[in-house]
């Protein structure tokens, strides 16, 4: 996994609550058996004026001029500013894959749906929860200032504004550790293989019907 330590990037808005994963990446693109290549179809139904199909040349598709991510001022953005309950709906990891593939490294919102939140960390994408009022203020500042950037320092758990003001955020110790070091958590869990085997042996004794029923 890609490590995340400190990142400075242009901020772009996704100004609506309850953005679901169907909106982040529509189902027709879920037919891919790869982890990459979803970027051009991020927010497909909002970004383009036509219906997208997998394998299409997206450079030939009509862009929706009213969708902020298409505005020249937000090109190259890597920090997404969003509203409440971002990423609700399906468990598709294609949602963080699409955000990542498009170039986003962090998403800031007042709250996230649980599965999406979890999936982000597995892909080096940092979801940051900030108070609704703080997010509101960031929206205002971003709109007022073209080229508005934020710096995110994971080690210090701080979002740093262009004027140097800092906003603290919370992050789980384990997730932080994995992100800072770009660690593969399967490898970490396998270090506990003996504990897993011991548990399994005990469980097999207590509830033998849970084993070997399906073969």
């Amino acid at each position, binding site marked *: 996994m890609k490590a995340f330590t400190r990142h400075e990037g242009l901020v772009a808005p996704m100004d609506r609550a309850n953005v*679901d994963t169907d909106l982040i990446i529509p189902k027709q693109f879920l037919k891919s058996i790869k982890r990459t290549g979803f970027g051009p179809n991020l927010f497909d139904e909002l970004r383009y004026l036509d219906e997208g199909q997998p394998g299409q040349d997206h450079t030939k598709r009509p862009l929706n001029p009213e969708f902020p991510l298409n505005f020249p001022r937000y090109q190259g953005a890597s920090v997404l500013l969003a509203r409440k*309950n971002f990423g609700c709906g399906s468990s598709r990891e294609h949602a963080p894959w699409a955000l990542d593939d498009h170039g986003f490294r962090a998403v800031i919102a007042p709250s996230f749906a649980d599965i999406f939140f979890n999936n982000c960390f597995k892909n080096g994408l940092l979801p940051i929860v900030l108070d609704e009022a703080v997010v509101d203020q960031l929206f205002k500042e971003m709109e007022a200032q073209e080229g508005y950037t934020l710096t995110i320092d994971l080690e210090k758990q701080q979002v740093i504004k262009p004027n140097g003001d800092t906003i603290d955020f919370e992050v789980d110790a*384990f997730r932080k550790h994995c992100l800072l070091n770009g660690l593969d958590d399967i490898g970490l869990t396998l270090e506990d293989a003996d504990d897993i085997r011991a548990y399994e042996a005990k469980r097999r004794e207590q509830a033998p019907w849970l084993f070997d029923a399906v073969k």
Partner: protein
Amino acid sequence: MAGQTLYDKLWQDHLVKSREDGTALIYIDRHLIHEVTSPQAFEGLRLAGRPLWRKDSLVATPDHNVPSHAAERAAGVAGIRDEISRIQVQTLDENCNDFDVVQFGINEPGQGIVHVIGPETGATLPGMTVVCGDSHTSTHGALGALAHGIGTSEVEHVMATQCLIQKKMKNMLVRVDGDLGPGVTAKDVVLAIIGKIGTAGGTGYAIEFGGSAIRSLSMEGRMTICNMAIEAGARAGMVAVDQVTLDYVKDKPYAPQGEHWDKAVENWSRLHSDDDAVFDAVVELRAEDIEPQVSWGTSPEMVAPVSALVPDPAGEADATKRAGIERALEYMGLAAGQKITDIKLDRVFIGSCTNSRIEDLRAAAAVAKGHKKADSVKEVLIVPGSQSVKAQAEKEGLDKVFVEAGFEWREPSCSMCLAMNADKLGAGEHCASTSNRNFEGRQGYGGRTHLVSPSMAAAAAIAGHFIDVRELELQGETA
């Protein structure tokens, strides 16, 4: 010490190890997989040279991409016309062969929507931890299991380690007491719950559904409720084990038998919250207050009783919410204050892991019997949740009732729940759907979904617009 909740017990039973950083390793008993969220996980195992930790924990089936048309279905995987869909289903075949995983293949008797076949085969059981790369895994919690959806990286993690790294969730009790009125179903109950607590109301919680109205539901009704826990933001929903659960599980193909059965029953008898258990949040509803529900917007919380009016955004004080309602009404092509019963339907879909079990089909057939779909309705799809549901329905003659009513009888698949196969809404079309998500574009680009129960969907198919199914029954119009 206060007593434990059902979730506390299930968590405790599966705790391999608590780590100092506040995370825990939780052991997974059953891992269900389908074609959409597993290929990248198998690929990850291959790249890292890792084997499956315990292959008898896995059960696979293709459901999202498989065609529902009998003709296209007949030729099996090779007959899937959409090339990328075919490759994805083939990839599941290959992965199951390479890793020696049990799969119910495309036209085999056990095939179906993953959340329908788990309980019906006994592959998912009370007391288990169940995961799947699919958010509606919460369905299996109806059995008194801890079941939730995971992303593809976690699918790979469970394949390789049999564990998940988790933080314990908070406990929420949603209690529905009283008696449900005639024509009011489990689907209406769960839509009413989501309407009340919102799509983020359960975020961070495991929800236990309790109270006399929940206890009086069949297992299938409980599955419908737990299925949509995720629509209330909760990864896991569950119902305590009782006699209804045991009667349902007994003699399922993979359920314990003989001595193991007795031991299992003893073990499962403690799978309920203790009387003195403490919940972090409690939500209460009266069953008598719940009417048949219809969603009018683009989020499952945008739902109203069938007798109500489409809301007016002007009445909403919160600016973000108001903007959400305005956008939803525009997308849905509805006017503030119009009657729900004036919404006309272009298509009707009865199916999905929420409502495609035999009792759902019986309920729809009871309404459809002796009627014809309205001419203005282009298509009514009935998509059974599994091969075994299909076989049972045909045994009972339900397929004939549907065909006589002008409905289409299809093959087990997810179908128009998410429109990954050929079943889709056209832009601007309104659909009465028994599925679980009314998100923009979910059932087809520009499509407009209204979530309802199977009997409400069948009634709408006949009337051509929403209608209170109870009126239909009161008029004695149903057989």
